[in-house]
């Protein structure tokens, strides 16, 4: 891997940009055996492979991706990064990720364009204000940056915000996490792929896992793929919305349901929106990409589906909210909308850990908000796979919690929209 630097940029500028090479090796088919196989080449899977190779010295690793690298939810999300979760376990997990985000470009020698421009969550009702303040105080006690703003302070931070008292849901206050923000989603996948590949990880695209092999004792001994069989004693399933499908190959039923989640972008315009704004109550979230597009997140459909497209009425509902909060956008045109399939757990917290099958690990259930956790998720999952035991941060997120009842109930406690 050639190191990226200012000196290299200058040198390439002088020789007609002729010295750039592919960022990662892309073998046509996997080798016959690996020390670990990651099923799913999205951000979380690639990050897992990177940390396995970098921190745990496990370099004979394959990442098997059914489609193209980062082509699933990694390339379909609204790129919001924050860690202001209510429950202690969640705050620890997402804050771990935020800390890794802060040094990620340097770590990977790849500009992931992490931009801590602030994430503001609006309150529109008395109940919202109470819940929002409870969040802020809980976060401050947990060492997570989060502040409460009055409506005027919120508008000062985000001038496009309307404080019109005649709105159906007027702004009564806001919680602001200044360390939150956005990152370039594709660059995250590419950066991890490049760094992992340089450490020896094989990334095989268009290679679907069609079966998980188990030996006489029930332990994992390999996977079947559309590009040949692979022998391995460790398989990490990081397949997002398709986790239930992959895990069924090993005979494991998951506490997951998959839903389409929509996002959309507008035509690109000059910089006009300084931060990320979210509203759980009227379900809208919006930021402006560095390309100039407004990036808008809508909700999930009511029913499970793998169709990668959501109902138009879901997107319309969000656009109604955006137009009321930010009247200046009423004449904007939307360019594209799409759906990603998100795997949702009953308690809206992820599952990261071991499974009943020896050698089979799963990292899933990120629901509507997994992008923000990418580095932290890969980091603790690699630890879990390397040591056959969870990292202290992901120990509470075990699959076992649906038997013991020790749920991490972010859904009811926080009414989380991501």
């Amino acid at each position: 891997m050639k190191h990226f630097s200012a000196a290299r940029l200058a040198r390439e500028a002088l020789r007609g940009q002729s010295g750039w090479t592919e960022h990662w090796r892309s073998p046509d088919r996997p080798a016959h055996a690996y020390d670990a196989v990651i099923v799913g080449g999205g951000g979380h899977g690639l990050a897992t492979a990177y940390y396995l190779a970098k921190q745990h010295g496990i370099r004979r690793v394959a990442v098997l991706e059914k489609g193209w690298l980062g082509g699933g939810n990694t390339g379909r999300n609204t790129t919001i990064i924050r860690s202001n979760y209510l429950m202690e376990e969640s705050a620890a997990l997402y804050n771990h990720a935020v800390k890794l985000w802060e040094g990620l470009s340097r770590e990977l020698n790849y500009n992931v364009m992490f931009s801590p421009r602030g994430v503001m969550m609006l309150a529109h009702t008395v109940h919202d204000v109470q819940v929002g303040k409870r969040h802020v105080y809980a976060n401050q006690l947990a060492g997570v940056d989060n502040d409460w703003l009055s409506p005027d302070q919120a508008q000062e931070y985000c001038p496009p915000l309307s404080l019109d008292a005649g709105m159906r849901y007027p702004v009564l206050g806001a919680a602001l996490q200044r360390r939150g923000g956005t990152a370039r989603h594709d660059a995250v996948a590419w950066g991890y792929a490049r760094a992992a590949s340089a450490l020896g990880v094989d990334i095989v695209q268009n290679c679907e896992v069609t079966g998980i092999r188990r030996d006489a004792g029930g332990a994992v001994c390999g996977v079947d793929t559309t590009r040949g069989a692979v022998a391995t004693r460790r398989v990490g399933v990081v397949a997002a919305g398709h986790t239930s499908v992959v895990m069924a190959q090993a005979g494991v039923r998951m506490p997951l349901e998959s839903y389409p989640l929509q996002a959309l972008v507008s035509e690109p315009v000059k910089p006009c929106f300084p931060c990320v704004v979210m509203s759980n109550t009227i379900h809208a979230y919006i930021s402006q990409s560095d390309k100039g597009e407004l990036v808008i997140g809508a909700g999930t459909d009511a029913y499970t589906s793998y169709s990668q497209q959501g109902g138009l009425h879901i997107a319309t509902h969000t656009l109604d909210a955006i137009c009321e909060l930010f009247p200046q956008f009423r004449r904007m045109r939307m360019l594209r909308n799409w759906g990603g399939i998100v795997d949702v757990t009953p308690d809206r917290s992820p599952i990261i850990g071991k499974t009943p099958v020896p050698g089979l690990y799963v990292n899933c259930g990120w629901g509507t908000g997994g992008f923000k956790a990418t580095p932290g998720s890969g980091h603790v999952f690699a630890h879990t796979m390397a040591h056959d035991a969870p990292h202290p941060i992901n120990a509470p997120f075990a699959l076992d919690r649906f038997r013991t009842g020790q749920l991490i109930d972010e859904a009811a406690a926080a009414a989380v929209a991501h």
Partner: protein
Amino acid sequence: MLLIPCPICGARPEAEFTYAGEAHIARPVDPAALDDHAWGEFLYARTNPKGDHAERWRHTHGCGRFFNALRNTHTDRFTASYLAGATRPHGTPTTESLDAPAMRSETEQWGQA
């Protein structure tokens, strides 16, 4: 927006309906007799297939009745709808979801790791 075939009222737009999750998951007759795994499986484990899915809907803004439907989760096309309490129509593709959760002792038991 889906066009959903209510077995009583006929095809109506999705906005009239409420989704109620996977069908044919019978509440165990004697919950106290179940171990933690079986109870957790009943509460939380779902088939979540990519393909034919038996699911419950309620025609909230119509007849108000619960009913079951078969929908392909890949194409979102409905292939059947039938009254609650009826068995899954004969000849349609079956999935594991037809098994009562407590009867699924031969399948993997998450929660033992």
